[in-house]
């Protein structure tokens, strides 16, 4: 991806984050906004992206729908980090039986496909966003952990790590600062952005299908698309805007992730 592409991707992700923050403070009421008299208005100066078939502002619903995946996406990232980072880092640094046990656990979790794992969690614990988020985070922990284990395993016997220890840096600091932070932060962020993209696709897919995820009247880009697509004579922006938002956000997350590299040459 070009430098310009990376900048655009970062701008899209920043815009999504700002939408989320705006939705938290805006006080937009999804029920009170129902105005059948204004149904299906096309974009205009009065309604930026027009209205949907129930007369609700598409722009405000689009902004509010970011709540459906940004907060839970961050929770999913926290779960993946909490599980994958310490186990993966220790397995890579210590090697031997510790790495064997951790890799076995990753293999067990990875044996269940991600989507199946999420559906399984939903069927047991319900389809609340936090359940989806924890399941998504759990399904990404093996990927993050294994990537960290492989990277740290490759670095731990390198001369510069020995030299760092010889200068008097403790093993814990060598692992936390020199290996994890300096050598793996791009890898970690890459995995977390992939997880955000996965969570967005997961959430919008489930909301689109219905029965899982965010349900009407709460907005999600998935249910906005599902409810507005194919309505004869409706406002095309009501389904095109969430569809474009999904595509742009997923492309931005994956695109930015693919450009992340550590500085220097490790």
């Amino acid at each position, binding site marked *: 991806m070009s430098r310009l592409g990376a900048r655009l991707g970062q701008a899209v992700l920043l815009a999504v984050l700002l939408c989320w923050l705006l939705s938290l403070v805006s006080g937009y009421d999804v029920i009170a906004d129902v105005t059948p008299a204004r149904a299906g208005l096309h974009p205009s100066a009065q309604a930026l992206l027009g209205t949907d078939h129930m007369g609700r502002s598409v722009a405000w619903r689009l902004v509010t729908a970011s709540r459906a995946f940004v907060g839970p996406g961050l929770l999913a990232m926290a779960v993946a980090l909490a599980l994958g980072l310490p186990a993966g880092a220790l397995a890579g640094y210590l090697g031997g039986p510790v790495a064997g046990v951790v890799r076995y656990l990753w293999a067990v979790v990875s044996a269940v496909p991600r989507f199946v794992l999420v559906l399984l969690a939903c069927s047991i614990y319900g389809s609340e966003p936090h359940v989806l988020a924890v399941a998504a985070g759990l399904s990404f922990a093996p990927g993050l952990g294994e990537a960290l284990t492989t990277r740290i395993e490759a670095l731990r016997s*390198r*001369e*510069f790590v*020995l*030299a*760092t*220890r*010889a*200068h*008097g*840096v*403790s093993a814990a600091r060598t692992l936390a600062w*020199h290996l994890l932070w*300096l*050598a793996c932060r791009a890898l970690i962020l890459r995995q977390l952005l992939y997880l955000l993209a996965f969570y967005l696709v997961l959430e919008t897919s489930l909301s689109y299908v219905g029965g899982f995820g965010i349900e009407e009247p709460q907005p999600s880009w998935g249910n906005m698309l599902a409810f507005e697509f194919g309505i004869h004579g409706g406002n095309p922006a009501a389904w095109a805007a969430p569809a474009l938002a999904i595509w742009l956000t997923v492309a931005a997350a994956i695109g930015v992730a693919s450009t992340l590299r*550590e*500085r*220097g*040459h*490790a």
Partner: protein
Amino acid sequence: MPEPLLELVDLRIRAGTRDLVHRASLRLEPGRILALVGASGSGKTLTARACLGLVAPHPGVVGGSLSIGDGVTTWRPLALPPKARRAAFRSLRGRVVGWLPQEARASLDPLRTIGSQVRAVLSLRARDRIALPADRPRPEDWLAAAGFSDPSRVVRRYAHELSGGMAQRACIALALARGSRFLLADEPTTGLDPTVQAAILDQLGRLREEGCGLLLITHDLRIVPRHADMVAVMDQGEVVELLPADRLSQARSEPAQALLQATARIAGGLL
């Protein structure tokens, strides 16, 4: 006789049922350079790493005694139980025993600039309350002390942007900045052109003049008579001969003879 900075008696390092190092005895005094010579695989680097406590449990140090002193206090880490031993080595590394690695470029952190690495070492020095010379407060000052003519440019560079000689100088700058009481230099001139070799050796000589001890590991016998005070010859994990460096040509042990003859075949003898 002054208190030694490093005294190793009958060190034994074992891997499985095989002794990689045995009967390795060395003594290093302040302001002296002890050359440790021997063929590749004779156990020189392993012995030095044992002095830093950086030999993995397998192989592991299974015998011998090690005394490390800073002129005031003497530590005997090998006499301690494992947990206390690890803590003792951790407190000695860098503060008392410094390390000048063999592969300089690979020993520099590839993800940080040279300046950032010198700053990190200076913060370790501050942590250990080692006084900082008033005329060398910045990383650039230590790089200049290691022989860089343009330290302000070097501080912004990464290891892969340095030549072999520059990387070795950067490692010397790190060792100087760390302020260790003595240095274990593992083949610091290997792979460098003669001009850089001479500059590095002169730099190490200046360290000696400042009272720093130096264990100089090398398989290049030509540099020993001029740059070392004593020489220990190692073969198959054993120190087989210890003699003044200027009498290296009179060494009697078979391994020393073999090294001398090989040196003569390559370069026509000792310089």
